[in-house]
């Protein structure tokens, strides 16, 4: 624990230092990044210790704030989330040094690093806090810091708009959390998470209400449909290393919060006894949310033209997948099936880490593209692989991983969830089977669409011929930006190759989260580890065969005539870049099929005459919940409140009349 305290102190110091130092920017970047990196390294020590079965560590310091106590605890669940947080924070920080270089001189970098340190600190506190007040403060600190990071390029109108949407969304979410915490506090008569976990919520109705509150409150941060509106706005607006941090780990604090909340609602405690079991509909609800977020998320991603927006929607999708895992776990809780619990929660938790890795990687890659070409319009890019080989290679790995394909990490976590769903769906009766089977079909669809989306993203951005001038002056990122991407890519591969080991490491966190018997957990984990061992064998075989083929091909082509020529274009001698398939045309068939869901708007000016001068097609896919839910609701409230304008319309007589009426009405009412 002391290590963690040191780490946090260091972050605080770093924050203050960069703020005070201010200039020169170069050193500021190194100072900020350095403190984050060292803090992360320090923090990882106890985290790994706890995850490897070490004892839970806690520190309680009285804190002179009403109901507040500086109570931190590092249990496996916290450690599990803390690990990716620290990792991605450190890597993004290193990346940031190179990424922010282009702003040097134009803008003092002190504030951005200040808030970066605060954001990391906030996330650590959120994960560690065991006192409601402390948690809320940390939660808000996180929101505030990230708000200032999102609005880094506040000269741009769109960025300011995004910042507004983001802050409003997260703050309204917090409102629900406040109610959640205060109601729980009232029920248990304490502000202490450990007490909450012990007592749990016994009254069923209240537990249901709290569950819903938690879903809205934490779901807003995590990005459940339809509370996700801020994601596609904020992530593109933020500097890329911040997007990586936010999308990779910050939104996971929502998932963490939801899990933590479940431990209060008497759910996990009841895994054994029928007493505290959650009702079935909780699991149904989560699976429903997961499917909605997953399918709609990936569909909207497919419809985007901006690379970072696309990635942002994929975060929604992956949060959906994680939620599917949690839902499976909850169903397990309701039925007391340790298999479902372990596979469901295990898969969800593992996907949390995996998504942190590859989504972080992908955002960093997108950042490198932006840094190199100055645009994120997918249809303006192309052929970048030749100019940015490292970025392209790592991005490819990320793309394969996020599509859930072997041999990478995405496949592993989805394997767990799928396996759980199949086992449950096969063995049990309708009430459990139906959501699980829906999950199977849905996850399969998500997988197919994700593959489609990332073949598009990678293929159009990095392959083919450059589609615009932007690409021509593209340049590969420097090592500060490359190194983090390489490390993350390595992470994706390693988790894929050592899947059984990784799955084994879930032991501690699952015991801690679900209160199952260690035996129950370990045997279920073993039951999934053995197939994964086979998967790994298959993977190795695959790689060996691939190697063999490479050698074979080289042998075959050795000494033969290998010529290069233009792409065969059915007789076109010189295929120009304009003739290539664009991202929009690539996605068009799927878009047309799902038009009803997406509400894509097309603006076509078709070619006219014998020698058409120009023709244009423009498609925009506004966010459905933003358009259909929030805009109307906010508009309604707005116009409803503006009915009150006349109250203040300038006539003093009227004002006195209000007073008189108030007085007389009260008198008559109270003295009647």
């Amino acid at each position, binding site marked *: 624990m002391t290590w963690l305290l040191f780490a946090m102190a260091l972050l605080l110091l770093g924050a203050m230092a960069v703020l005070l130092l201010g200039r020169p920017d170069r050193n500021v970047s190194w100072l900020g990044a350095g403190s984050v990196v060292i803090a992360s390294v320090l923090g990882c020590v106890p985290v790994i210790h706890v995850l490897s079965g070490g004892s839970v560590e806690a520190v309680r310091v009285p804190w002179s704030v009403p109901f507040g106590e500086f109570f931190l605890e590092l249990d496996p669940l916290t450690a599990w989330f803390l690990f990716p947080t620290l990792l991605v924070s450190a890597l993004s920080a290193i990346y940031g040094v190179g990424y922010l270089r282009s702003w040097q001189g134009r803008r003092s970098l002190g504030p951005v690093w200040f808030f970066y340190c605060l954001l990391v600190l906030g996330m650590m506190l959120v994960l560690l806090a065991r006192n409601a007040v402390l948690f809320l403060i940390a939660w808000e600190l996180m929101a505030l810091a990230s708000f200032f990071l999102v609005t880094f390029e506040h000269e741009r109108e769109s960025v300011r708009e995004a910042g507004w949407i983001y802050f409003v969304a997260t703050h309204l979410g917090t409102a629900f959390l406040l109610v959640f915490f205060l109601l729980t506090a009232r029920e248990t008569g304490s502000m202490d998470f450990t007490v909450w976990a012990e007592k749990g919520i016994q009254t069923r109705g209240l537990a249901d209400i709290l569950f819903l509150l938690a879903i809205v409150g934490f779901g807003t941060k995590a990005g459940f449909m339809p509370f996700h509106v801020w994601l596609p706005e904020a992530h593109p607006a933020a500097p890329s290393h911040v997007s990586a941090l936010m999308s990779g780990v910050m939104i996971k604090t929502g998932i963490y919060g939801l899990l933590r909340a479940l431990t209060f609602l008497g759910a996990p405690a009841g895994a054994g006894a029928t007493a505290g079991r959650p009702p079935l509909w909780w699991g149904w609800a989560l699976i429903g949310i997961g499917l909605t977020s997953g399918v709609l998320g990936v569909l909207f991603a497919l419809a985007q033209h901006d690379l970072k927006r696309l990635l942002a929607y994929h975060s929604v999708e992956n949060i959906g997948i994680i939620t599917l895992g949690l839902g499976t776990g909850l169903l397990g809780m309701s039925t007391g099936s340790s298999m479902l619990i372990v596979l469901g929660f295990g898969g969800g938790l593992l996907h949390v880490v995996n998504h942190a890795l590859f989504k972080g990687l992908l955002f960093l890659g997108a950042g490198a593209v932006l840094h190199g070409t100055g645009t994120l319009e997918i249809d303006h890019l192309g052929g970048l692989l030749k100019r940015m080989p490292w970025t392209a290679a790592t991005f490819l790995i990320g793309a394969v991983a996020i*599509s859930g394909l072997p041999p990478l990490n995405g496949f592993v976590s989805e394997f767990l969830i*799928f396996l759980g769903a199949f086992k449950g769906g096969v063995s049990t009766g309708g009430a459990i089977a139906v959501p699980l089977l829906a999950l199977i079909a849905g996850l399969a669809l998500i997988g197919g669409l994700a593959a489609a989306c990332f073949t598009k993203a990678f293929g159009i951005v990095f*392959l083919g011929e450059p589609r615009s001038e932007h690409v021509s002056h593209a340049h590969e990122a420097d090592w500060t930006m490359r190194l983090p991407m390489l490390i993350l890519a390595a992470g994706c591969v390693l988790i894929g190759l050592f899947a059984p080991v990784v799955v084994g490491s879930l032991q501690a966190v699952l015991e801690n989260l679900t209160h199952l018997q260690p035996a129950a957990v370990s045997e279920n984990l073993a039951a999934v580890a053995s197939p994964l061992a086979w998967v790994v064998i298959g993977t190795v075989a695959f790689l060996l065969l691939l190697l063999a083929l490479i050698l*074979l091909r080289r042998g075959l082509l050795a000494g033969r005539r290998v010529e290069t020529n233009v792409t065969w274009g059915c007789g076109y001698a010189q295929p120009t870049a304009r003739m290539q398939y664009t991202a929009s045309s690539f996605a068009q068939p799927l878009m047309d099929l799902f038009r009803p869901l997406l509400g894509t708007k097309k603006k076509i000016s078709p070619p006219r005459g014998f020698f058409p001068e120009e023709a244009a097609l423009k498609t925009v896919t506004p966010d459905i919940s933003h358009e259909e839910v929030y805009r109307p609701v906010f508009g309604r409230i707005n116009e409803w409140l503006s009915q009150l304008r006349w109250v203040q319309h300038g006539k003093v007589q009227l004002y006195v009349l209000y007073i008189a009426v108030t007085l007389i009405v009260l008198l008559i009412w109270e003295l009647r």
Partner: protein
Amino acid sequence: MNALSFIPLLLALILSPLLFGVINRTKALFAGRRGQPLLQTYYDLWKLLRKGAVYSRTTTWIFRAGPMVGLAAAWVAATLVPLGNFPALIAFPADFLLFAGLLGLMRFFTVVAALDTGSSFEGMGASREVFFSALTEPALFVVLATLARQTGQLSLSTMFEPVSGADWLHGGPVLALVIIALMIVLLAENARIPVDDPNTHLELTMIHEVMVLDHSGPDFAFILYAAALKLWMLGALVLSMVLPSSGGNPWLSLALVSGGMFGLAVVIGVIESVMARLRLLVVPQLLIGAGAVATVALILTLR
């Protein structure tokens, strides 16, 4: 695992190219031609392997990696597929996830390799490929879920065991529906009529063929072989369900499966001869239909 368990793999590796021959023969017969020799595919492979290669200046290592990844993936996948009474070389719970994953990987790289050429035709093919596969994927998984529910098994080798009359009696409709769905998946995944026409070389109409336009020499050989393997594997799955059980006699079952595979090839050939390729706009309906059929089967298992 004993020697027998290598049989499905070996048969797949050796005989898969023959399927194309049989299909083409059947079609030729229907068209009243003599048609190419049965072993034509082998000749083609051999010829291609001995050729040099031409590459587009646009392309990168992705383009070269595509075919090899595809073939390697197909090989590994082949180890998971049972054949009639012969269980697969490797069988473990939920091995079909790895199977599907490998096919997905194969597709992923074929597609990016196609996009690597920067040709609009191959882009078009790629687009259609991902479009259709995104629709077949759920269908395939629902089929798997149905079988898993029906048999209570979670491994290809045990799920796709030959079915006895008894099974047909108590689960007849389910099996029938599953077979239909799986057949459609097979045709779509292997770019056969009615989804795609491997014969025409009018790019606009094609999906799989057009994606590999620019490949040549050994690369193309790999692709061809991988395609044959894919056809064989999915075929094997369908076959395993329709084949009657052969009381454990290896030779009998060997005869059964090899006969069965080519019977299947003939069926495909017949389908291709009597049906026309569907309009592209209609294909999604067919695939979604497959998913629907599979779902009906699943619902039947739920009651």
